[in-house]
């Protein structure tokens, strides 16, 4: 039983571990969850169906990745079963790995508004891109490309100021001072609460 669970976990690790690093070479201001929610045009969770690297149709020298996500949940923006977006890749290493969007990878994405040239990216780049991981015990967690460092700064205070209550589990997550993987359900509850708190 233990061995079986270990193997299962390991296989999960193999699947999820196939994500590759992405969007190197960008320095961004730290973004709290509040800022991610506020800045995003669309917040979706789903699985990568495809990620194809191709030149921008209008600007052929700009390398882009066209990502199609099968949406499991929409937390902000219009609900759609699939979302396709085009993201600029500026580094040769990212071109080689499709910006790190591996087929079947599961993500929670905070997407910027699409520019008039059809381009978007996660808010704060890696900060707005959360990898969703599921373990053999059914625990589901999410962590962004900055390890969730500083993610919950001032979030509790904002919710308290607007008298928006969240569950004790979510409150505990928001009080955690350090980064690290966050329980997906609590994270999504916090996102919804912040979305409610927006003016």
């Amino acid at each position, binding site marked *: 039983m233990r061995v079986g669970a270990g193997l299962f976990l390991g296989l999960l690790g193999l*699947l999820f571990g*196939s994500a590759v*690093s992405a969007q190197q070479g960008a320095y961004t201001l730290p973004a709290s969850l509040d800022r991610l929610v506020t800045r995003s045009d669309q917040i979706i969770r789903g699985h990568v169906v495809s990620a194809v690297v191709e030149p921008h149709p209008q600007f052929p020298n700009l390398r882009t990745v066209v990502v199609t996500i099968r949406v499991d949940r929409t937390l902000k923006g219009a609900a759609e079963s699939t979302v396709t977006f085009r993201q600029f890749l500026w580094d040769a*290493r990212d071109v080689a790995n499709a910006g790190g969007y591996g087929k079947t990878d599961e993500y929670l994405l905070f997407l910027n508004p699409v520019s008039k040239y059809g*381009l978007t990216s996660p808010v704060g780049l*890696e900060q707005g891109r959360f990898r969703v991981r599921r373990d053999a015990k059914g625990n589901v967690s999410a*962590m962004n490309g900055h390890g969730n460092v500083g993610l919950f700064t001032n979030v509790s205070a904002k919710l308290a100021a607007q008298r928006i209550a969240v569950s004790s589990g979510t409150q505990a997550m928001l009080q955690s*001072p350090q980064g*690290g993987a966050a329980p997906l359900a609590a994270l999504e509850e916090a996102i919804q609460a912040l979305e409610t708190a927006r003016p």
Partner: protein
Amino acid sequence: MKRTALLLLCALLAFAVGNLCYAGGPLQVSGPAAAQPGQPYVWDTASFPVRYTIDSGPLSATPEGVTVINNQTGVAGVAAMFHTWQSVPTTSISYTSAGPITGVAGGDVKTINDFNAVQASCNSAAQNPVIFDADGSIFSALGFDSLTIGISGICSANPATGKIQSAFLMLNGELQDGVTDPTTSNYELAEDLFEEGITHEIGHFSGLGHSQINVEVLNQNPLNCNLDDLAGLPLMFPEIICQSRSSENLPLLAPDDMAWISKLYPNASYAANYGTIRGYIYFPDGVTQLQGLNVIARAMDNPATTQDESKRTAVSAVSGFLFTGNPGQSISGTNTGGDSNGGRDPNLIGYYEIPVPPGTYNIQVEDINSSFASGSLVGPLDPPILVLYPGEFWHQYESSSDLTQQKDPIVVQAGQTVSNINVIMNGNDPRFDNNEDDGHSLVTNLTNWITDAICAVCAWSSSL
């Protein structure tokens, strides 16, 4: 125990198929296509100074188009940031402005059309452009938000020679326009932190990856980090954290930054000012090399001073930093050859080497912080390896059961290489044994089964 071993093995496999880039010293390492695999990608020293072309427009302007930081100031600022790296006395890297960006009207990159044209010339290694996006409109057109301080990228590199051929840098002037307006998401960043951010990006432009030293700053007040920690914190640390160095009269570059730019591009004085500590990190079996741990050479603290030299003078590398994080596998059908980067010589697994100024050091081994994945990556494994062993220091009688805080001094002279500073991690799991079994795991497994059986009986009996 067996479960843990399996987890470790599977985790290793998972990590082994999951990465494309390197850090903790070099940004990228040459792969199988190179004449010399396992070498850092660097600019060709014969081409020094690296010639960058620079935007002819203002560095920063308000949304209404009023210049806030003019071109002359911007050009001088960028030159100073390049000079920060160039002025390290033991490096040969140098940079010079080759004049205005070519290929766009007046050398002023103002639109995504202009950016597209400039990218073409960067991709073909015709120029290394430094672009001022004065009002953030190019970042916006590219689908970015105003949180981006700057980006840098290698436009082209030669996998056969391991040479960087061209790179670019773009600065977001919106963060310096003097306007703070949350309704339009227009934010400001203090000038000294902006300078730190862009100088960090120039580190990547130059071929440097991220470094982890004094990682405890992540748990400190970000506006008031401990000064010893800040003094030794590499500018190439993955995150913006802490008060600015200039606000504490600290140099922009930490010893780690200076050591690694010198290691990648040593000048004639390098050998007279640096030595090397090198060795391997091993699993507790003492023979299996362990990949992906952070190794820090810390100067011995001088008790006669109020400063903590072990925090301030520290240089790091990641074990196995020259080996690929993705050797390939044929099972999935999509990863046969693995990563095009990184050496395949098994002798590079778990190997580290650290350039240090002459002095007396301790070697510390620790995990890469789990936060440092993807864009914040440190070392060849993304995400960082899940290590079940406690961090420890090197001492001369290394074993898997020694005291983790026991440490012996290592004296390094200029020009000297101190080898075989090998650290055996503590723990009961001997290694990733690739199905080989010394019997220990079998006994442990049997113990687990028996324990399970007893628990099951207990649970059954208590339910009666």
